[in-house]
């Protein structure tokens, strides 16, 4: 036993010396903390969504995130339409934190009167200390239901419940590199039960790229882009690109952004036709997020 302690203290001193050489705070106490505690990364993003895509962030258990998403019309419509502000489409969303690693939510979009619901599970949580995990790994699965009277929109094709449905499955690999910078990558599969013709794939594969760069404690630049791999007809311009700022004010998070995406759920913004950035077919939009504590926290 004595021997073990002796070796351990020797190692401690050695590593303390090493870390002192690296110019860090080499006090033995902080070193102990680093080795035996588990420091889980939080606040990689300000909310569970980057802009459109799910982020590597989860809701705390017992909380509900009430989200109001707005997208205005095309900026290219000009002054008569007040650069698109005369039109708006929106999504109302309710997301719930169930356990630290599990959340679920649902929402309703005005576009196609679509209802969507999802389950999000954190498989790995980026952390330092006792366990070193360099990134977070998150699984999201969701389902969308088109609520239009005639969702297919073609004469002679019967409307069945199955033909209203779409699904998406997504893996998010994200890392908070520093207090300022977070990046994430999200391979996604979007399935539509029915498509317009034989050439349009039922299974659309896509990769999302999202990130955040924090300027100050309350202000950050966020972006997300989704590259669809087997879209028909191939058109890069439809890939949704959103650029925005996150502003945190007390209990609210405001996300103000410009995007060519029309829809606000995974099926809609990845598979539907979006505008062309180069032609100014972009929309101003904002997401408003307010988190409520709905289950009392145990202390």
């Amino acid at each position, binding site marked *: 036993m004595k021997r073990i302690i002796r070796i351990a203290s020797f190692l401690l001193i050695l590593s303390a010396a090493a870390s002192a050489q690296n110019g860090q705070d080499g006090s033995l106490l902080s070193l102990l903390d680093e080795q035996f505690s588990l420091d889980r990364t939080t606040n990689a993003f300000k909310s569970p969504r980057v802009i459109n895509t799910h982020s590597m962030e989860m809701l705390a258990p017992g909380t509900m995130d009430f989200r109001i998403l707005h997208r205005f019309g095309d900026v290219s419509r000009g002054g008569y339409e007040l650069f698109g502000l005369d039109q708006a489409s929106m999504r109302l969303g309710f997301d719930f934190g*169930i*356990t630290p690693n*599990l959340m679920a939510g649902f929402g309703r979009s005005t576009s196609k009167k679509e209802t969507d619901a999802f*389950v999000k599970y954190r498989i790995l949580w980026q952390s330092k200390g006792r366990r070193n995990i360099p990134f977070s790994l998150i699984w999201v699965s969701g*389902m969308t239901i088109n609520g239009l009277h005639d969702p*297919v929109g*073609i004469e*002679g*094709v019967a409307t069945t*419940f*199955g*033909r209203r*449905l779409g*699904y998406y499955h997504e893996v998010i690999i994200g890392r908070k590199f520093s207090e300022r910078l977070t990046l994430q990558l999200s391979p996604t599969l979007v*399935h539509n*039960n*029915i*498509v*317009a*013709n*034989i*050439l*349009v794939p*039922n299974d659309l594969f896509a990769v999302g790229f999202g990130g955040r760069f924090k300027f100050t404690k309350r202000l950050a630049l966020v972006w997300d882009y989704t590259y669809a791999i087997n879209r*028909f*007809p*191939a*058109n*890069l311009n439809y890939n949704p690109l959103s650029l925005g700022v996150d502003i945190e004010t007390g209990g609210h998070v405001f996300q103000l952004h410009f995007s060519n995406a029309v829809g606000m759920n995974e099926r809609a913004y990845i598979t539907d*036709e979006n505008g062309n950035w180069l032609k100014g077919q972009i929309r101003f939009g904002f997401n408003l997020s307010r988190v409520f504590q709905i289950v009392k926290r145990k202390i």
Partner: protein
Amino acid sequence: MNIKNLWWWAFPLLCITSITCTREYVEDLRGVCFDSDVLPIFQSNCTQSGCHNSQDRKEGYDLTSYESIVSRGIVPGDYKASKIYKALVAVGEPMPQSPYNRLTDAQITTIALWIKAGAAHTTCSDTTLCDTSNPKFSTVVSPILQTYCNGCHGGTSPLGNVDYNTYAGVKATVTNGKLMGSIKHTSGFSAMPQNANKLSDCKISVIQAWIDAGAPNN
């Protein structure tokens, strides 16, 4: 919540989703007709002066007739391998080149479906479309103009001061008589569409019926 409880929720959810997941597409029962669907797209969008008509034959492509279209750049049955399709969806500078617009998704889809079905010389009578009772601008007239005229009279720089991007532009040529004069090949008007056959009597009569009704924006 423990993991066992979670399964009570997850299992029915998995069942529902796996039962409801299907894989369907809308089948086009009429099929793509080369003469009335595909040829006008090529003629209207690709055969401008200096481009792929039978005189200029840019890059060796002449897109004015069935024989010349299938002779080069079309692999029947495989649209992805067909050079003409690849040019239409090329990243960066797709055909038709600027200042003309990229073809619409519907037009690209029509061409790809036609190639996939074997790139045959199919003809359909368009009597089914020949309904002159109350033809609407949005569903009947505009698609015809889109197919036959917008290659030149659309996009970012419409030719001859005739802009069919908007209803207002169409209405202007209805008022000054140019639209009917051109498509009926009346003397004193330039015969349209260029490098292509005259519109069918059916299409002309449908457009005439719409104009007689006051050319409404409906």
